[in-house]
C-alpha cells in the first residue's frame, strides 16, 4: 500500500522540524542560553517519524534520553518543548524536567528518561493498561542499542511476551552507547537474536529510510492493535553528533564512519525521492524548510520570552494532588 503524498510531505516536514529543532537546541546550549545538556537526535529522524506516524494520539509512547525526535513525531508542541529546555515556566514540565524529561500525557507521551532501559518496564505497564482496557490501543517504547545491555530490557521483553501485551519495542541501533560499539557489548552481536529468545517476532529495517520505517511500522502497528502480543523492531542508524552537547565526553568514533553515515542522511534521502517522484519541487521543499525554521524561531522566541519559574515553584508537584475517583 503506497503512502499518500500528503503523508510523505508531512513526514518530510516533521523530520526537518526535528533536525532544525536539534540544531537550534545544540546551538543555544553551546551558546550558554540553555542549561543542562542536550542529547541530539540528528541522523535518526526517520525512525521516530516513521514509527510515530502510525500511532494514534491515544496510543502511549515512552521515550529515552535522546527523546526530542520521539516527542515531536508524536505531536508535541515544539514551543513548550523549547520552553522546557530553556527551563521556563511555560515548558511542558514547568521547567522541572528539562531536555531529558519531557512528557505530554495528553497525547500519550509518558515521558523521556535519563536512565538507560528504565523506560521499558514503564512502557510495558502502559501496554498492560491498554490490554486491560480491552480496546485496540497500543504502546511503543524507543530505546538504543545500549539499553539492550541492561537487565531491564530482558525482563520487559519477557513480561510483555508472556502476558501478550500490545507493545512495540523500537530499538534504534545507532551502533554506539556513548563510545562503546554494540558489537563489543552485545554478545553475539545481534540484537534481534536476543529479542527472539523472548519469543518476540522481530524485523530489522534500515532506519535511515523513512518510507521503509513507515511501512514496517504500519504493518507491525496493525498487528499489535489486534492484541496478539509484542513486536520488536530494530532500526539500523547512526547519530551524527557526539553523545551529548557538552565536551565532557569526547567523541571517539572513527571520523570516516561519521562522514560515511552523514552521506546516508535520511532527510536528503526522502527529499530526493520526493523530487524524483514528483511529489514536491525543490522550491516547495525549500518553502517547507523556511516554514520550519520560522516555527523553530517562534519556539525559541516563545521560550526566551516566557517567564522563569519562581524559586518556590520547586516545592510543588512532589506529590500529585489530582483526585483519583
Amino acid at each position, binding site marked *: 500500500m503506497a503512502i499518500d503524498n500528503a503523508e510523505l510531505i508531512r513526514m518530510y516536514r516533521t523530520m526537518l522540524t526535528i533536525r532544525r529543532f536539534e540544531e537550534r537546541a545544540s546551538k543555544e546550549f553551546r551558546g550558554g542560553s540553555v542549561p543542562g545538556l542536550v542529547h541530539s537526535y540528528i541522523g535518526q529522524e526517520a525512525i521516530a517519524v516513521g514509527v510515530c506516524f502510525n500511532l494514534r494520539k491515544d496510543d502511549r509512547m515512552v521515550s529515552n534520553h535522546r527523546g526530542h525526535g520521539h516527542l515531536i513525531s508524536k505531536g508535541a508542541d515544539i514551543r513548550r518543548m523549547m520552553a522546557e529546555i530553556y527551563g521556563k515556566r511555560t515548558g511542558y514540565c514547568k521547567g522541572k524536567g528539562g531536555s531529558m524529561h*519531557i512528557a505530554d500525557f495528553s497525547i500519550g507521551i509518558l515521558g523521556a528518561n535519563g536512565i538507560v532501559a528504565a523506560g521499558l518496564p514503564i512502557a510495558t*505497564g502502559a501496554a498492560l493498561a491498554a490490554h486491560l482496557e480491552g480496546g485496540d490501543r497500543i*504502546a511503543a517504547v524507543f530505546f538504543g542499542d545500549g539499553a539492550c545491555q541492561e537487565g531491564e530490557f530482558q525482563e520487559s521483553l519477557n*513480561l510483555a511476551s508472556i502476558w501478550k501485551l500490545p507493545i512495540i519495542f523500537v530499538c534504534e541501533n545507532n551502533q554506539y552507547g556513548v563510545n562503546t560499539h554494540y558489537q563489543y557489548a552485545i554478545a553475539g552481536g545481534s540484537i534481534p537474536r536476543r529479542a527472539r529468545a523472548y519469543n518476540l517476532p522481530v524485523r530489522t529495517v534500515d532506519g535511515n529510510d523513512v518510507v521503509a520505517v513507515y511501512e514496517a511500522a504500519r504493518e507491525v502497528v496493525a498487528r499489535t492493535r489486534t492484541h496478539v502480543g509484542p513486536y520488536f523492531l530494530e532500526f539500523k542508524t547512526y547519530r551524527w553528533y557526539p553523545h551529548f552537547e557538552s565536551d565532557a565526553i569526547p567523541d571517539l568514533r572513527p571520523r570516516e564512519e561519521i562522514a560515511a553515515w552523514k552521506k546516508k542522511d535520511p532527510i536528503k534521502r526522502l527529499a530526493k525521492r520526493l523530487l524524483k517522484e514528483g511529489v514536491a519541487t525543490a522550491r516547495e521543499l525549500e518553502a517547507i524548510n523556511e516554514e520550519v525554521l520560522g516555527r523553530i524561531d517562534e519556539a525559541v522566541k516563545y521560550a526566551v520570552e516566557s517567564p522563569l519559574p519562581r524559586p518556590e515553584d520547586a516545592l510543588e508537584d512532589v506529590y500529585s*494532588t489530582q483526585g483519583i475517583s
Partner: protein
Amino acid sequence: MRKITYAQATLEALQEEFRRDKRVIHMSNDIPPELREEFGEERVRLTPIAESAFVGAATGAAGSGFISVVDLRMATFGFVAMDQMVNQLAKITYMFGGQARFPVLLRMSIGAGIHMAAQHSISPYAMYMNVPGLKIITPATPYDIKGLLKTAVRDPNPVICFEHSLLAPLEGEVPDGEYTLPLGEADVKRKGSDVTIVAISKMLHDALAVAGEMEKRGVSVEVIDPRSLVPLDINTIKKSVAKTGRFVVVDEACRTCGAAAEILARVTEDEDIFRKLKSTPRRVCGLDVPIPYSPPMEDYVIPDRAKIRAAVEKVVGSQA
C-alpha cells in the same frame, strides 16, 4: 468489637478496595489466593521473578489510569527494583511537572527476629525516606493497617507500606464497616506525662509493654506511633515532648541515618522544644551491623524491652 489478625486486616483492605474500584490491579511473585479467586487472573497477576519489570509496569499502568498494588514480599527483594522505585516512580510526578498521577501501592515485609540472616531480616525504610516523592507507612496494628492501606490505595501517589513479618498473626479490634485513616497522622497509643516514646512498627508493642511496667514504678510514659513516616506528623510528637520534656525514639532498623535519627533531629532542632528538653534525647535502634542468623546474636543487635527500659530510665534520670 470483632478481633482479626493483622494479616486478615490487610487482606480485607485490599478486598474492599478491589471491590470499590475496578481500576485496582495486583502484581506479585506469589498469587494471593483470595484476591485471585474473587477478582480473576487479569486483575490479580502472577509475575515472573523480575521485580524491576513488574514495579516499572506498575508505574506505567498507574500513569495510564490504573491503580497498581505490588506485593514485593520481603523488603530485601526490593533492591533489584530500586531504580524503578527511587529514580522513576518517586520522581515521575515531579519531573513531568505534575502532569499525571501515579497511584502505586508497594508492600514489603520487614524485620528481624525470624532467624533469616542479613539479607532477609532488614528494615530499610530510611533508605526510602531519603527519597523525596514517596509516601511511607509502617502500620503496627490490625486497625491501623486496614485503614491506612485503604487510604494508600486511594492516594494518587506512590505509597510504600512496610509490614513487620512478626505482626502478621497479631490480633486486634477492627470495626466491621468501612473506615479509612489519613496518612501523616501519628497516633498517641498511650497517654503519659513524664516521657515521650516514639516507636516504629513492631517496636510499638514493646514500647507499650515498657510503658506499662514503668507506670508501676511511677513513671508515666506517653507512647506515640507515627504510623506514617512520610509524611511525618512531627507536630503530635513535638506536642508530646513539649509536655513531657523527655524523649526516646525506638526503631528496630539500624541506627545510622535511620528514621530515629530524623525524628530526633526534627524534635531537637525545634528551638521551643529544645529549650523544654529536661534531659538528653535518646535513640534505641538496631546496631549498625548486618542482621546475624543465630538467635543470641540476632537478639543482641535489635532493640528489646530491656533496652527500651534502660533508655527510659536514662532520660528520666533520678526520678525513676
